[in-house]
Structure formats: structure tokens, C-alpha cells
């Protein structure tokens, strides 16, 4: 959980503020440039439909902008931002369920260096999302915050407003279910391939 992954901190290359800004605005822009990609990956794993991710990520940073005065240095910007992302994603899922979202165009395919890596990466992502979708929502959120956003358990407890023991319990259950689902999937695929 401590290893830093390339998608966790990938500042947006070439994106610079257009003008000199006040410190608070500059802080928001800096947070955007630092955490855009990790927020994108996080929101997608929290069950937001792919074609809505851009919209939801934008909303996350708008909330960050509106609430910047509330930020205290009790947690890192990343942890605070992930808390916002968690709530915005929850709200968006609710709106999707109620059919309250605007129609959005499908997400354009991402450009990747090679076909092989793209196919492999997308297949893995589809499989990961399929496994995540089988988890109960609370377990999914804890799992994603721990394994995708790489937050520590106390940070997750803070973000979710739950007890630390609850976080550990949910994470343990989520890992167990994910592993069982992955094994079952691999077994089924092995059987399919064998039959073919």
C-alpha cells in the first residue's frame, strides 16, 4: 500500500495556469495538476460509468474549489480530495440510478503505446471493474480507497467517517471476495479454453 504507482501522482504535463492567481486559486490548480489522473482512476473504479468519468472528475475539483477554505492541514490534500471524490461518485451513482444524468457521448478510446499493452490493459481493467461490481458498495469503496488510491486504513476511516475496525473488516471481506471471484473467473476461463 505504500508503493507509489505512476497513476497516483502524475501531474498534467503542459497544463499551466494562464495568469497569476491568488494563492487559494493557485492551490486548487496545483491540486488539479497533481491529482487529476489519480482521481480519474479512482472515480472509474467507484462505479461511475466510463462516459461520465470526465464529468464527475470535473465536479470533484469544482467542489474542491468551492470548499478550499474548509481545508485544514489535518489530512493531506490527496486524502481530502479522495473523500470528495467518494461522495461525488456516490451522488452520481444515485443520479444514474434515477435517470437524472444528461446524455453523454461515449468515451473515446485512450491512446496507448502498443496494441498488445492496450488490449492487455483494457482486458485487465474490464476484469477488475467486473470483479469490483460484485462487491457490496461499502466494501467496494474501502477496497478501492485501499488498493487503488493506496490510502492507509486510518485515512480511509477518516474519509468514510467510519471506525477503523470497520475499515479493516470491510477490507478483509472485500479482498476475500475479490480473490474468490478472480479464482472462479480464471477457472471458468480455463475451462472454456480447454473446451475450445
Amino acid at each position: 500500500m505504500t508503493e507509489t504507482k505512476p497513476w497516483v501522482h502524475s501531474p498534467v504535463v503542459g497544463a499551466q495556469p494562464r495568469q497569476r492567481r491568488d494563492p487559494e486559486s493557485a492551490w486548487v490548480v496545483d491540486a488539479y495538476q497533481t491529482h487529476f489522473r489519480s482521481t480519474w482512476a479512482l472515480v472509474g473504479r467507484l462505479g461511475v460509468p466510463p462516459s461520465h468519468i470526465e464529468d464527475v472528475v470535473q465536479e470533484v475539483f469544482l467542489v474542491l474549489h468551492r470548499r478550499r477554505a474548509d481545508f485544514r492541514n489535518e489530512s493531506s490534500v490527496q486524502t481530502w480530495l479522495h473523500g470528495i471524490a467518494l461522495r461525488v461518485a456516490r451522488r452520481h451513482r444515485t443520479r444514474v440510478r434515477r435517470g437524472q444524468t444528461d446524455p453523454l457521448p461515449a468515451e473515446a478510446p485512450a491512446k496507448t503505446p502498443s496494441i498488445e499493452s492496450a488490449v492487455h490493459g483494457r482486458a485487465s481493467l474490464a476484469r477488475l471493474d467486473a470483479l469490483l461490481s460484485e462487491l457490496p458498495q461499502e466494501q467496494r469503496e474501502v477496497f478501492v480507497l485501499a488498493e487503488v488510491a493506496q490510502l492507509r486504513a486510518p485515512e480511509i476511516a477518516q474519509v468514510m467517517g467510519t471506525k477503523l475496525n470497520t475499515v479493516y473488516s470491510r477490507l478483509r471481506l472485500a479482498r476475500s471476495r475479490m480473490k474468490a471471484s478472480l479464482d472462479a473467473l480464471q477457472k471458468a476461463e480455463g475451462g472454456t479454453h480447454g473446451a475450445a
Partner: protein
Amino acid sequence: MEPLDPELRQLIDDGLTAAAPERGAESRGLESLLAHIDTPPLTPTVPAAPILGKLALVIATVVVTGGTWIANRPASVPVVGADTPAAIERQDPPKAKPSAHPPTPSTPVPPQQPTNPVTPAAEKAPRPRPEPHRPAPATRKADPPAPSTTADALRAEADLIARAESALNRDKPKEALALCDFHRTGFDAPQLTTERKAIAASAACMVKQTDTELATAFVRAHPRSALATKVRQRCGLVSDDETSQGQ
């Protein structure tokens, strides 16, 4: 906590390599964010408007956003009721009534900020219900919450929509999109969603000519409205009438 199962770890790592944002998404988002940051604040407090004042605001906004659709309706169709902007909006997926739609407890409610066009009270305001054909009696009891918050929200909405429309007219679709985004996220129960969707649809295809999906969806949903006519014009879409005439 013990480490994650290696196969699961590998799956997550491999999968996340494909979870990269679409090309251009970062810069689009940053543009939009900067537009919000740079947007001058609206008047933080406005005096309470009477019900008829709210109606005038809605009508003014519809006119500003090109909503001359009433004139295009068949004469046999009554103007009030089914064809009001509120009725058009009701064609959208159903939304919870204001009373049954409290702010989500887990949703952070933004505090009042200098750059926020909507006061916190306005963000919590339920959807106002302008009823053009039924003037409010002077002694009508105030709806909870206070009418002033509803009026504030509606006024702020109308201002945002007007500014978004103005941005389109100044050939600044990205600014219009940013304002639409602000309208979409800044109000708990927005009233002028149809107008916003029309502007967003036009702006999307003005940013990228081939991006006409939103416009097509809007025109399909509101085929006879003047807003749709405007979207067609801005996006270069051919109307069904023109198509049938050409055949």
C-alpha cells in the same frame, strides 16, 4: 494488514494502466476549472422576489436563451400548462419532488465563497414551481423554505444561463460549457435544465464540429422547440422537416 494477493495486485496494476484519462481530458478540465476560478462572483444576496417576479425571471431567461418557442407552437396547443418550460423539463427523467429530495447527507455542501455564484441557502433551495397561469395571491403563505432563497436560486440560475448564452454568442463555447457545468453542479434542484442542455449541446459541437451527439439527443427530445432550432443552426444539423422535404 497483510499484503494483497499477488494476482489481485497484478490485475489492479495492469488494469490501471488502461484507466488513463482520454487524451485532452486534462486540458479540457483545467480550462473549465480556470473558467470557474476566473468567473467573477455574482451578487451574493438579492432581495426576495415575489412569485410573479420569479415568473418574469424565467420568461426573461427563456427569451434571452432564444426561447421563442412559444410562438412556434400550433395555435391549438395551449401555451400554459403542458408547454411551459417546466413541462418540457418534466419530459426529462423524473426527479424527486423538493420535499422528498433533501440534500444528500454525505454530499459536502459548499460554504459561501466569494467566487460561488450561489449562496449555500440557494443551493439547498427546492425547485421553484412557477405557474404562469395562476398568479399567486398576495396573502399566499410562504413555502418552506423561505421564498427568498428560492428566488435567489432562480435568479442565480437565470443569470448563469444568460451568461452561458452570452458566451456562445461571443463564440466562446468553452466558457459556455464551464458555466453550464457550474449550473449543473451548483444547484440542488435546477429549474432551467432544458436551457442549459441546449447551450451545452450547442457548445459541444462548437468546440468540436463532429461532436453532435448531445445536440442530436436534445433535438430529438425537444423537436419542436425554438431551442432545438437554435441548436440545429449552431450545430449544422438538418431538421426532420428539411429531411422529409429533400426526399
